């Protein structure tokens, strides 16, 4: 193709500049709604620039071709985009979306719960069968001591051992638990194997602690200690597992006649909604664990802590089961 480049550029550059201006405005104002004539003009400019790119492909100055290619790519991504933009999502939707995503994928949550219960059962049986297994299953300094001795020490303490550290302890718990949950979620990309292992291990620890304290007759202390923060923390971990299983299900496919990319794209929104929900839950759980769960009788009677935990669990259940439901 014979192309007089300077003359060609002089003739076309005004169109390219106009197209770039429209694209910049679309980037800066996501809510901009074009009029019919503006849409037609935008389409025309895109097609004209694309046609120019085809002509330049034959022979051209590389920088010009590269910049025009970038411009056409931007216009292409705008014109051919059919997914809804974030600007159309209302804040009420964001508030209820985690609950709706939770309900949409009940099977994944059941699987997450099932794996955790299996882990709990193993932890329970292992401790009840031989208390020496505690050293293997609960290698944490706070859990190694005898439950009876710990309860006696906590209830007779004259001073609050977390005095002056509660805020930083709370922040550490929040960030640690969110990291672990995100990791559990992300392990869904290992076809769910990593998610299963993490949920199972979490269940083992939970079952072992329960067996240890209940076996020592410290049920009230255990429930009063775990329920206030556990009513949010344990469901949050289960929801992380649920989100991980969504990724795993999309990765595996199970004979669905849809490409991997499409399966993952469909799941992405719900995974993000669940991640946002669980992060919020863990922020709350971190505050409760530092400021309430670690205070024991006589500072805070167990009945108060258990009631508080039950109210929290009920509120969470109500949110997850009812929020965002449409009236029929």
């Amino acid at each position, binding site marked *: 193709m014979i192309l007089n480049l300077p003359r060609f550029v002089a003739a076309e550059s005004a169109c390219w500049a106009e197209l770039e201006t429209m694209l910049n405005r679309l980037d800066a104002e996501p809510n901009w709604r074009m009029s019919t004539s503006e849409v037609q003009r935008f389409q025309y400019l895109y097609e004209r620039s*694309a046609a120019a790119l085809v002509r330049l*492909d034959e*022979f051209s100055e*590389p920088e010009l071709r590269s910049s025009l*290619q970038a411009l056409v790519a931007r216009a*292409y991504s705008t014109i051919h985009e059919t997914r809804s933009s974030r600007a159309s999502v209302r804040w009420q939707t964001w508030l209820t979306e985690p609950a709706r995503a939770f309900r949409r994928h009940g099977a994944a949550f059941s699987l997450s719960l099932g794996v955790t219960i299996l882990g709990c059962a193993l932890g329970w049986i292992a401790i009840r069968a031989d208390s020496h297994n505690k050293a293997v299953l609960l290698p944490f300094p706070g859990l190694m001591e005898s439950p009876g001795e710990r309860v006696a020490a906590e209830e007779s303490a004259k001073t609050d051992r977390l005095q002056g550290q509660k805020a930083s302890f709370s922040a550490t718990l*929040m960030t640690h638990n969110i990291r672990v949950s995100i990791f559990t979620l992300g392990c869904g*990309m290992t076809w769910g194997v990593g998610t299963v292992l993490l949920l199972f291990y979490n269940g083992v620890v939970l079952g072992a602690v329960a067996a240890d304290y209940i076996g020592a007759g410290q049920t009230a202390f255990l429930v009063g200690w775990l329920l206030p923060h556990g009513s949010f923390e344990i469901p949050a971990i289960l929801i992380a597992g649920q989100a991980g299983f969504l990724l795993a299900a999309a990765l595996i496919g199970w004979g669905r006649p849809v490409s991997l990319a499409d399966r993952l794209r469909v799941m992405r929104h719900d*995974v993000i909604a669940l991640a946002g929900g669980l992060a919020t839950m863990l922020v709350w759980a971190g505050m409760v664990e530092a400021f309430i769960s670690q205070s024991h009788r006589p500072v805070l009677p167990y009945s108060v802590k258990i009631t508080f935990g039950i109210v929290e669990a009920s509120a969470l259940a109500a949110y997850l089961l009812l929020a965002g439901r449409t009236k029929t």
Partner: protein
Amino acid sequence: MTAESALRVETPEGVVFAFSLASPLTRALAYAIDVAAIAVLTTVLSNIVRIFAIAGTDWAGALAVLFTFLVSIAYGILLEWRWRGQTLGKRVMRLRVIDAGGLRLEFTQVVVRNLLRAVDMLPALYLVGGSVAFVTRKCQRLGDLAAGTIVVHEPQVQAIDLEQIAPIEYNSLLAHPHLAARLRNRVSAEVAGVVIKALSLRDSYEPSARVALFGELASYFRSLVPFPEETVEALTDEQYVRGVISALYTAKRATK
């Protein structure tokens, strides 16, 4: 599975454009810059947070922990969203995250690819993510696969400095516009690029090699489009090649 070096997108209008895929090594360098930026940012924030120690060291400590966490999580998400697929490291290395289909990058894609860094980083030094990137066709780590994104390289294309390469006051080849047009038709962009490279390095050649190289190039161009003898008889081979390049990239008429 073999890795591709470019993502080609063909629009319904039949226009094809290509994105050059970033290599894992370039991405690692960009990430190293990002890690340094995050470290600087958290250090600065930690120092600012010390002001809150007036209200109590406990709260100052809590804020420091939260800021460190938020910066490490939000750095990639916010920058890639605000800068349309780029972080500081990616800007420096001229990389950009884009949708794998060439469409607009969605916020959920940015969030997913950044959240899944936790797995890609395992067990250390991005071993999982790096290994996956090496074996996937589009050089994607797990986060990219889940988010449906790719990382592309945006090469910095230098403008051709014709004045430096072919500073010809009078280009006699342009006195024959139909032949110059035929030349533009027959010389491919790749060949022109190689010749421009040769011209830009001409002062570094041994004199004999320089004469031989431009002699061969001039013969090649003469075989493509012969110009009238009286037009080129006074030109050396190197001047002839410079004249050809000048004629390819400009359409000015010969002027004295």
